[in-house]
């Protein structure tokens, strides 16, 4: 099936060389070495970016044949446009996220800069893949009993919480937080090449100042970590929330933080109660 989808993308972007790197639930991600509108020999002069300027990412939302045509077109267009606008807004706010280069909403296309690197096993550097790799190492390696649970993982998860806190302080909720949607990048400015997290995949994002929506965002991430990384999830969530608190502290907004956490407790409780007949 993906052969047909690739053909369709090639028709929409006829002059690009395309390599498929991932097929998620909603979209396919390709790499290309050709910038959509700049000349071939153009070299990026934007030194403030951490991105690899020799390649770019094309995110394509194909039509979903199981959906009714009208519904499908509406969803593709609105999610593509919404994601692109939020990526743009975040770039203006100096929030670490891939920069938007171009978009074609009715056809479900977004072109953005390339971020991330390849892990030891060849997988892309999402938080999920990184943690799974560490967990595998821990299970098979008796010398490093805590590699999935140590200081570097702690600092990583705290940073995830901080990023999320910053996002929420801008009154933006992600809407689809999972460890697959957190991409690790190598911090080029640091000498040791430290790894830090960035948020990606803003297709379900929206603007909201409601503490309830931010609490649901946190709850979705908590549950995603519990279901995907069950062994250490409680610890991961603790660290993540510490980082989240730090972000609010840094902007002297502790009152808002308290409100979100209060709402979070309510959302968690509703989750526990939810197995009733409505």
């Amino acid at each position, binding site marked *: *099936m993906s052969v047909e989808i690739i053909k369709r993308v090639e028709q929409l972007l006829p002059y690009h060389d395309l390599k498929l790197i991932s*097929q*998620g*639930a*909603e979209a396919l991600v390709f790499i290309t070495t050709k910038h959509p509108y700049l000349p071939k020999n153009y070299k990026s002069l934007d030194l403030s970016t951490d991105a690899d300027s020799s390649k770019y990412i094309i995110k394509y939302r194909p039509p*979903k*044949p*199981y*959906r*009714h045509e*009208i*519904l499908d077109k*509406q*969803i593709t267009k609105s999610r593509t446009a919404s994601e692109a606008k939020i990526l743009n807004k975040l770039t203006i706010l100096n929030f670490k996220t891939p920069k938007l280069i171009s978009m074609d909403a009715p056809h479900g296309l977004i072109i953005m800069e390339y971020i991330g690197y390849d892990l030891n096993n060849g997988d892309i550097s999402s938080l*999920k893949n990184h943690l799974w790799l560490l967990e595998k190492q821990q299970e098979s390696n008796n010398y490093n009993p805590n590699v999935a649970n140590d200081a570097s993982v702690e600092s990583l998860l705290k940073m995830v919480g901080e990023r999320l806190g910053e996002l929420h302080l801008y009154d933006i909720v992600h*809407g*689809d*937080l*999972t460890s*697959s949607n957190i991409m690790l990048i190598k911090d080029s400015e640091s000498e040791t090449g430290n790894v830090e997290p960035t948020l990606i995949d803003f297709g*379900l994002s929206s603007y909201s100042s409601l503490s309830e929506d931010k609490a*649901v965002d946190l709850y*979705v991430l908590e*549950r*995603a970590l*519990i*279901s*995907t990384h*069950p*062994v250490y999830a409680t610890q991961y969530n603790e660290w993540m929330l510490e980082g989240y608190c730090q972000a609010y502290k840094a902007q002297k907004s502790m009152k808002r933080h308290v409100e979100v956490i209060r709402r979070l407790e309510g959302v968690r409780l509703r*989750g*526990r*109660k*939810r*197995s*009733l*007949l*409505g």
Partner: protein
Amino acid sequence: MVNLDQYLKPNQTEYYALGLEGSANKLGIGIIKHNIGQLTTLNKAEVLSNVRDTYITPAGEGFLPRDTARHHRNWVVRLIKEALNEAFGCGLHDSFKKLDCICFTQGPGMGAPLQSVVIAARTLSQLWGIPMIGVNHCIGHIEMGREITNAMNPVVLYVSGGNTQIIAYSRQRYRIFGETLDIAIGNCLDRFARVLKISNYPSPGYNIEQLAKKGKNFIELPYTVKGMDLSMSGILEFIESLANDLFNGKKNKLLIAKNGTNGTNEDEEKITIEDLCFSLQECLYAMLVEITERAMAHVNANQVLIVGGVGCNERLQEMMKIMVLDRNGSIFATDERFCIDNGIMIAHAGLLSYRMGDFTELSESVCTQKFRTDEVLVKWRDD
């Protein structure tokens, strides 16, 4: 491999369990048989009997706990006798001696109906001297689905009147990856059926499905997927108000189909009840398929198993199949004997638990309306 025969009695070569289910308006009694050894494709569980009676209310009415509990109370003895007769053929006085355990739904579900059934279980347990096993209703659906379809490790979509969950197995628990943030999908469909005064026989969802087959105009409804979760109370409110306007003859521009064949308004078509049913299904099921796809991608699974009463719906199965085949995966579903609430799934899941040495003391046989799927330790699996 887990050893399922650690508690085998001397000279025993097979197990028999009685299952009692009554968490909603269906009272189901089933008797299942397991041969010793692992459950495999060559050593399947055998359904010896699977009987059910459903409490049905007049059109436009939902089922209340008090009446549902009464229905269960008054039918349970008859149905148990029927099940035993069908399974063992001999009289009541001998058949019960074959049973290893009496399994009952401990939760989740409606309080009073659950109570009616557990009282029957407790009575029989004491009368016959047979241990009881409390079973989680959702686990019953999942384990029966796996046994009937041979799906090894699928992402499970559990959709019924009381539950809407996306579940994947990991380390001895059925973990909830996504779920409804407010009402269950079956509940949404049932309540819409009440507004339209659709008959509750055989079930409101079935009748909505038949009407939807005749619908053709699609109305845009709020589409509310939130990550791996979904919300349905907004859609229900929206479509209920459309239906009310339709009945009251109120003018509402949403109730006029967008045809635009010749660009004029001459061929304006009015939206019908069939169109509303059609649009509701298309929207709700698309949301379910989307969150299922997300879960599949997230855990790298390529099998989907649909369980629960709403899983009988052909359109949902069709849409899910299209998505799954697109991903080169496989889809599994059961027929109405097993996807609608039944006693055999309780007997099966209960027997698995019993074979691992569990049983429920009388003092612990309290039912609970709230019982999360991931609270159960799945001892009978070690993958």
